[in-house]
């Protein structure tokens, strides 16, 4: 069977990503990123349990530039995963499946997550006294 010279579907060059697809992929990506963050949580707890010397290691890591950058990204992933996760719970209840509603709520999820993230970042920098 001759299959050459035919356009393939979907046409990936002109394919417009639906917003709901992007939010779905971001939900999984943020979840994977947060599972690494939960390993960092255990690292912190173990360092606290082992004594002052090991706690100082955790403290210096989480206060370093890299540590703060990671914490900021984990905060962003957390608030996104939280907001979109709550939307998933509404979907589980059978609400919000209409295409236009799902599209509009995607922007609401992104907006609330962004606002919470920025407030947390600002609060974090205030707590640290403008960068320790």
């Amino acid at each position, binding site marked *: 069977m001759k299959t050459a010279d035919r356009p393939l579907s979907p046409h990936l060059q002109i394919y417009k990503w639906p917003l709901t697809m992007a939010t779905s992929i971001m939900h*999984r990506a943020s979840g994977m990123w947060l*599972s690494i963050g*939960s390993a960092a949580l*255990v690292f912190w707890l*173990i360092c606290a349990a082992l004594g002052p010397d090991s706690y100082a290691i955790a*403290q210096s890591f989480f206060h370093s530039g890299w540590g703060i950058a990671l914490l900021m990204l984990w905060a962003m992933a957390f608030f996104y995963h*939280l907001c979109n*996760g709550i939307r998933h719970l509404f979907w589980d209840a059978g609400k919000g499946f209409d295409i236009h509603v799902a599209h509009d709520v995607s922007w609401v999820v992104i907006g609330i997550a962004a606002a919470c993230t920025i407030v947390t970042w600002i609060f974090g920098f205030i707590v640290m006294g403008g960068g320790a």
Partner: protein
Amino acid sequence: MSNYRTPLREVRGYGSAHHGTGHWIAQRFTAIALIPLLLWFCFSLLYTVFTADYAGAIAWIHQPWIMLALILLVSAVFYHSSLGLQVIVEDYVHTKWLKTATLIVLRLFNFLLAIAGILAVLRIAFVGV
């Protein structure tokens, strides 16, 4: 067409996914539990823990309700994480042996981290400040 399914098969309700609704329910259950737990933890990190020294951090953890919440948090986080990562692997890894191996490693790793986190909290609880 006659029905070739046994009554036992019908009552279990297992389809081609080879498992029932247990995974789905556990994922939602842990998700709902994690909403207050993680909001509380994030707030505590910023408000108390992040700037505390060693003694301050231990004093914070070494409170009964905090330790209870931390153990619940660690349990729910790694249960939820294990379930979520499992679905991602099942969706995208199609080589049978690699899929099985990845699922086993991920589950063991999540279990190990959960136990390590709980043990760390218990050590602070019993060994003390």
